[in-house]
């Protein structure tokens, strides 16, 4: 047996637990949900095959359109905000000097907050009449909006809330920034490059791999936004909530159909619809990455 053969066998053995887990806990349920998407199934009676009816209904469902629009709108606001703020904070952290360890910890701590607790806290902070956020804006002469009750401000309010966990992206950028060789900045300065041009032509290409990764991961996470929005607008206060449609995200609609109306077949079709949307967006991102993302040692 050659060394490479032993290595590949060892590699396969190391992969085996993941492969078994993937087949049993991911691929299996996915195939089952694909089958369910072609049926009517309320969990109490056996599934009844209906062909593509669920997919046809999803295309005609007003709430699917609303939910998809809300989700895409939230993603378009959330991902750039998260990246810009994380990058800014990472830049500050890099200059923190001896206290950087402390500030890194402080920045990352909010990520540990349970999502439901976060939602409950932000319901108070974002209250349009006496919330702390509007009180803060009031110090500068601004009258803040009704973040939690005005449909036009609900998604921006949720984006503000989502920035609470910006620390997870910021620490990735901090790691990436420290890997950009200082000689490149020195060379750029010698060539008379302004700070903006240094950022544009040295920093961004140097961390483009990390930016690409966070764009893809944050986009996928945003398209699946659920917990905080559900806790704020569809949980115990759902009966009294009139903001539902403005915060009706795709996965919330899917959840309501699956577990509220027990329409597992229809919900499965919705899940595959979201899978298709995410797949298309990710493919576009991968294509664009070939043009804009640079890796160390990349000869292309």
């Amino acid at each position: 047996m050659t060394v490479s053969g032993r290595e590949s066998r060892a590699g396969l053995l190391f992969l085996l637990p993941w492969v078994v887990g993937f087949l049993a806990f991911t691929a299996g349920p996915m195939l089952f949900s694909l089958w369910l998407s072609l049926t009517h199934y309320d969990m109490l009676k056996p599934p009844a095959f209906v062909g593509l009816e669920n997919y046809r209904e999803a295309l005609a469902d007003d709430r699917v359109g609303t939910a998809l629009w809300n989700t895409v709108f939230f993603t378009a606001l959330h991902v750039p905000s998260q990246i810009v703020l994380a990058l800014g904070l990472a830049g500050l952290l890099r200059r923190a000097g001896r206290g950087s360890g402390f500030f890194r910890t402080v920045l990352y701590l909010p990520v540990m907050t349970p999502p439901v607790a976060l939602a409950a806290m932000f319901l108070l902070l974002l209250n349009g009449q006496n919330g702390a956020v509007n009180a803060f804006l009031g110090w500068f002469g601004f009258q803040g909006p009704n973040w939690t009750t005005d449909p036009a401000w609900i998604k921006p309010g949720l984006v503000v809330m989502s920035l609470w966990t910006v620390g997870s992206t910021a620490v990735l950028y901090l790691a990436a920034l420290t890997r950009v060789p200082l000689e490149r900045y020195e060379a750029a300065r010698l060539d008379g490059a302004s700070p903006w041009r240094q950022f544009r032509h040295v920093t961004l290409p140097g961390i483009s791999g990390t930016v690409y990764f966070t764009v893809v991961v944050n986009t996928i996470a945003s398209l699946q936004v659920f917990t905080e929005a559900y806790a704020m607008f569809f949980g115990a206060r759902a009966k009294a909530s009139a903001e539902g449609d403005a915060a009706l995200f795709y996965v919330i609609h899917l959840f309501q159909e699956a577990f509220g109306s027990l329409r597992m077949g229809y919900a499965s079709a919705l899940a595959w619809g979201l899978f298709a949307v995410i797949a298309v967006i990710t493919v576009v991102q991968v294509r664009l990455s070939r043009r804009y993302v640079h890796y160390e040692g990349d000869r292309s």
Partner: protein
Amino acid sequence: MRGLRLTAVLGVSALLAAGCGGLGSDHSDALVTMGFGLPDEHATARVAVFREANPGVDLRISEGALDEQQFLSAVAAGDPPDLVYAERRKLGGYAARGAVQSLDACVREHGVDLGLFREAALRQVTYRGEVYGLPEFSSVRLMIVNNPVVRAAGLDPAALSTSDWAGMGEVADRLARVGGGRVERIGFDPKVPEFLPLWAKANGAELIGPGARLDDPRVVEAVRHTTDLVARQGGWASFKAFRDTFDQFGANNQYVTGQLAAMPMDSWYLNTLATNSPDADVTIAPFTDRNGQVLTESGGQAWAIPKGARHPEVACRFLVTMTDTQTWVTAATARRDALAEAGRPYGGTFTANRAADERIFREVFAPLGNPILAEGVPVALSLQDQAFALPPSPAASELVRAWEGAVNRVLVGQQEPGEAMAQAQREAERALKRVGGR
């Protein structure tokens, strides 16, 4: 080494004994409930009555509000609790889906006199002629008016009426305080979308039942009337944000702080108000329809036995005991005594069992001179037998979601009332078609 082996055996045994299944799998001999808690003597004293009469039963109260998804998933997985405690209006849907069992045999075997239960409550748990649940508490909806605020506006609290829809807007304007995009006081809160069935009925329309349509012009008019009231008091965004700041269950509630002038409310709030702010100066009056007739909606919970329950006979004994007249009186007495120890009044217990209520308010009721209870309890009691209730529907959850969603769209200015209710009707028809009911 031997000790290590023994520890390992004990550890594995403990894990096996603990099991890892669902609600009932690890307690095959236990009687398991879902959706019920033990917050006060109303619950603990009645459970004690059952335990005393059934010492051999291992009763497990799985505390917390009913999680509908958890419940239905447990039934679907063949691992349901033995009893479920649910909102009455949802039981029709559970019955139609086969998630709960008929209680006809249970009622017959235990000689339960269904005539003792209030008609509206019993109707809600009856589906296609069979009883699927035994009703528990029963609340009605009535008006609670903040006297100082109304008098300060030059109005008579006793004359405040929900009959004159044309004049209500002007009254709300006088009572509300709105300025610079901020609401400082709500004049009249119509409590929509939750109270839409009451407003629709006040205009002569039903939301559920044969011939009922959500796009009925009378329903549309009720939606327009109530949403207009909100719109003229600052608009929904400010109105709701302000309402969210109420300390509804505290001593600084909206009546004490003057944040609210009037609203229709569930009768259980009388006890909350009397306990937290006994000196609040309020008028309690019936809600009236457009003809000036007294109108109220009944709501509450019921006990039911899920399909596939492991111990239906014991579960039957439990729900019969929990809703029995004497059990209620025992619980009411325990509640009164506990409140008396804290120096608080007891405002009675509103149940769906007419005989229990008669005894409780004759033998146990102890308002201790509290003016809110002295005035409010007779009003609530007088309304109990006049109440209507939403009839059972196999698509109850979907119907409620359809009309509440429609009112919400109007409140936020997305749609006009007619358009919103037409959409709600289409959604309701689709839901009813799916479940094959009406």
